[in-house]
Each structure stands twice: as C-alpha cells, then as structure tokens.
C-alpha cells in the first residue's frame, strides 16, 4: 500500500485508454481471474437458478405444498441479501480467496445437508439459511475482486462476468432436470455438492487476490505509470474507506436503484411461466420462453459494462432500465405463443442490461478503493428487490386472481430506477478522492 497522498490524476475516474503499446487486448492473468469468477458464479448460483425443477420432486416425496417449498427460495434470497454487506466486508478484510474458500465449504455443506432433509424446517435451514449465506460469502466479494485486476478495460472483464449470469440459468435447469431423472433429487444434491467441491477447489487454487500476488500490474496499466492504489489487503484502509463511503449519497442510491431494478425483473422471472400457463401455453413451452429470455440477456449483459465505460454509465443504465420497464407493458396484450417469445426477446435485452453498469459506476465514483462493502450493500438492495418482486406477484394473484397489478408494479419500479439513475451524481470525478487523507469524514455529496 502506498502512503503517498492522491494526486490530481487520482481524482479522475480511470479511462479506457489502450495500453501495452496501444493494444486494447493482450494476454494477462486478469482474464483467468474473470474466467474463474464466471465459473464460480455459474456453479454457485446453479442450484438457485434451477430451483424450479426441484419443486415437483420435493412435493411428491414429502407431500409439501408448493408455497411451502418456494418459501425456501424466498428465505434463501432474503438471507443472501442480508448477508451481502457482511460478505463484502469479509472480502475486503480477509481477501477474496479466503472468503471464497469459506463460502465454498458452507455451500458444499448446505448442498449435502439438503440432500438428507426429512422435515420442512430442515429444508429452510439447509437451503434457505446455509446456502443463502454461503452464496453471499463467495459470490459478493468476487466482483470487487475482479475489479482489482483492472486498471483499464474493466468493462470487458465485467461484460464477460455479467454474461455468465445469463448463461447459468440457460444451462443449469436442463442439467439439473436430467440429473433428477437419473439420480433422484437427493442424488442430484449430493452429486452437485461433490462436483462443486472439485471445481471450486481448483478455482480457488488458481485464484489470486491481487496482481501483486504474481508480480504483475493490473490489466491496462500503462508503461511507466505509477499504480498508486495498491491492492494489498489492509483492514485499516478498508475500514477508513467504508466510513467515508457511507457518507456519500451514491452509496445508498445505488442500492435503492438496484433494488428497483430487481423488483422490476423479479416479477417477470418468477411469474412469466404462470402467466403463460394461464394463457393456455403448456409448462414445457413456458419454461422454454424463460430460457429464451435468459439466453437473449447474455449479449446485453456482456455489452452494457463495455458501453457504460465507453459511452457513459448513467446514460446506458437509464436506457436499459427504461427498456426493462417499458417492455413489460407488452404483457398486457400478450396471449399467443409467438407473442410470449417476442416478449422474451425484447424484455431479455433490457433485463440483461439492468445490472451491468453497477461495477462501472462503483469504479467511476470510488476509483480503486476497496469495493466489497459498497457492492455488498448494493447486493442487499438487489436481494431484497428479488424477494419483494418474487413475493408480490403471488400475493396479488391470490387476492385478484390475476397478475395485472404485479406487472404495473414491475413497470413502475423499473421506470423509477431509471429516474433515480438520472438523478445520480455525474461520473466525471471521484466522489471522495481524498478519503485516504482525511481521518474524520464530513457529510457531503
């Protein structure tokens, strides 16, 4: 860690100017880190993404109501959301690699225990609490961890990482379904636990907390450039930054914006299949519509961080929030099979781009400061948004026997998120450039 004060150049958010003799892309271990994070995201989140395939087998085995089973998903979302700030804090203090190891152990234990449950409360504890906590611990620090590896061209790294979030749901559900057919639901949990253990052990072994660990500069560092903000894990530094960061409006607003975005798409993710089934489309075809939506979201997930870095992060985020919100209106007039596919395609574009701007926004506002805590707080907002959006549709359906008001809430949430993004601070300067100098932060911004 450098003890020197920030210079004027440190007040300006990092640009995406080419490096390595003008080349935008060149070999660097940062790409391995991105690949590790992407695979960890897919493996770790696979069981939650494919939760729907377990509902029927569990219902048949234990005669549980579907509402009781899906409550475990809700508990998982809420626990994961509440644990996210702490997970970011842990990642900043002990390092991403150790956090990943702790989370991976909890994940494997949670999966194995879920495979032996006999009572509903055991399911809630194993799947809801243990797996929810584990997912927060090893998934939340990952993104800030990847950010440490990039001085420039962060958008490309984030784009690949975000794209993996869309690929996961598209492949996890069919694989889990196939395993359930051949191994049963218990076998699926155990085999997934064993497979995840092997994959995660390899990935954690290959993961490095910072470029300094292997004696290189972050990706995009120009020749002769002093990379002043060192990435050594420093508890005092992380704590000092956290105290300053919590005095900024952006810290809170980014969390509430992520919350709004997640309310907006959670309604669709959870209830698109029931809406389609209500219109007379069979379950398999309805599930295919959801898979199409996930697949369509992949290019958006990849493109948004890149565009955000090059064009302007607030403008790009506002556009994709608008797309996510306005396309939901189509559902009011969607009745035919082909119309649902059309909706999946147009909504998937907006939905895919909803979250991709946040890492870039964090970088623009806070530079190379430890990002675990702000990202964790944003994930708290996202998780609560997913839980609220996922819950709203069911409640409204129980009361009104329809999803109309849930769709209205989805549209309003996305558009409110867009407005909130437009009200954020400009990104042409760091918000708290002097946080390392000032020991007693003042309220501002």
């Amino acid at each position, binding site marked *: 860690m450098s003890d020197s004060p920030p210079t004027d150049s440190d007040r300006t958010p990092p640009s995406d100017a080419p490096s390595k003799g003008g080349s935008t892309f060149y070999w660097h271990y940062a790409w391995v880190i991105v690949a590790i994070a992407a695979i960890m995201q897919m493996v770790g989140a696979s069981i939650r993404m494919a939760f729907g395939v377990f509902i029927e087998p569990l219902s048949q085995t234990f005669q549980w109501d579907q509402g009781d089973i899906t409550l475990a998903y809700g508990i998982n979302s809420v626990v994961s959301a509440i644990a996210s700030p702490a997970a970011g804090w842990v990642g900043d203090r002990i390092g991403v690699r150790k956090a990943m190891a702790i989370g991976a152990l909890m994940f494997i234990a949670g999966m194995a225990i879920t495979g032996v449950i006999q009572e509903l409360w055991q399911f809630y504890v194993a799947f809801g609490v243990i797996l929810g906590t584990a997912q927060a611990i090893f998934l939340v620090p990952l993104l800030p961890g990847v950010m440490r590896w990039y001085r420039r061209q962060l958008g490309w790294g984030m784009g690949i990482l975000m794209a993996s979030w869309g690929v996961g749901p598209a492949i996890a559900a069919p694989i889990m379904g196939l395993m359930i057919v051949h191994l049963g639901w218990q076998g699926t949990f155990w085999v997934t636990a064993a497979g995840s253990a092997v994959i995660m052990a390899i990935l954690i072994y290959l993961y490095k907390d910072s470029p300094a660990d292997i004696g290189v500069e972050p990706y995009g560092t120009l020749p002769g450039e002093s990379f002043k903000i060192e990435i050594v894990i420093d508890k005092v530094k992380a704590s000092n930054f956290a105290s300053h960061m919590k005095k900024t*409006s952006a810290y809170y607003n980014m*969390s*509430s914006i992520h*919350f709004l975005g997640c309310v907006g798409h959670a309604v669709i993710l959870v209830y698109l299949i029931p809406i389609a089934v209500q219109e007379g489309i069979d379950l398999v075809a309805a599930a295919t519509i959801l898979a199409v939506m996930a697949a369509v979201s992949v290019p958006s997930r990849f493109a948004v961080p890149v565009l955000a870095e090059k064009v302007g992060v607030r403008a790009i985020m506002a556009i994709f929030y608008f797309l996510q919100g306005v396309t939901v209106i189509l559902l009011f007039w969607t009745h035919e099979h082909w119309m649902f596919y059309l909706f999946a395609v147009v909504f998937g574009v907006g939905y895919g781009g909803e979250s991709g701007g946040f890492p870039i926004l964090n970088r623009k506002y806070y530079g190379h400061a430890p990002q675990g805590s702000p990202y964790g707080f944003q994930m708290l907002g996202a998780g609560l948004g997913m839980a609220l959006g996922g819950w*709203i549709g069911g409640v409204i359906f129980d009361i009104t026997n329809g999803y109309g008001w849930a769709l209205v809430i989805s549209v309003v949430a996305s558009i409110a998120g867009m407005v909130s993004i437009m*009200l954020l601070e400009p990104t042409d300067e760091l918000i708290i450039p002097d946080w390392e100098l000032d020991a007693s932060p003042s309220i501002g911004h």
Partner: protein
Amino acid sequence: MAVQLRGITVLGLPIQFLAVAIVSAALFVYLSGWAALARVEARSDSYHAAAFGEPALRSRPGDDTVVAGIDTEEQPWERVALFVCPLH
C-alpha cells in the same frame, strides 16, 4: 433540479433512497394486510357456508359469533399484518 434533489438528506440519508425505502415498506405492509384480510375472509366465508349455508357478512356490527370464529382461525402472521396495516 437534479442537483437540488441530490443534496436533500433526511437523518443523513438521501431523499431518493428514503423515498424508495418508504414506498416499498408501505407497499409490503399494504399487500400483507390485504392478503391477510383476504385469507381471513375466505375462511370466514367457508366457515359460515358450512355452518349456515351462506357466506358471512364480516363487517356486520355486533356479530360476535363471526368475530370469534375469525379470530380463532387467524394465523400469527395474519394477526401481525392486520395490526400493522392501518388500511386493513
């Protein structure tokens, strides 16, 4: 205007964040109360349909039998939701 809005804080929290938190909490409380009332009413209807062959009028003043019947069937979360929501 955006600059002015950005500067407004209440209890140290930005107004945007507070607005989202308050509206969301209100929505959660309102929907919880609505859902709880709908469930209680549905049970009351089926109770009265089974006992008297017709649905109950739950808001009937002074009908202690109906109220007692409903109260005994309330789930704890329903009781909390109806208590917290001022509109249900």
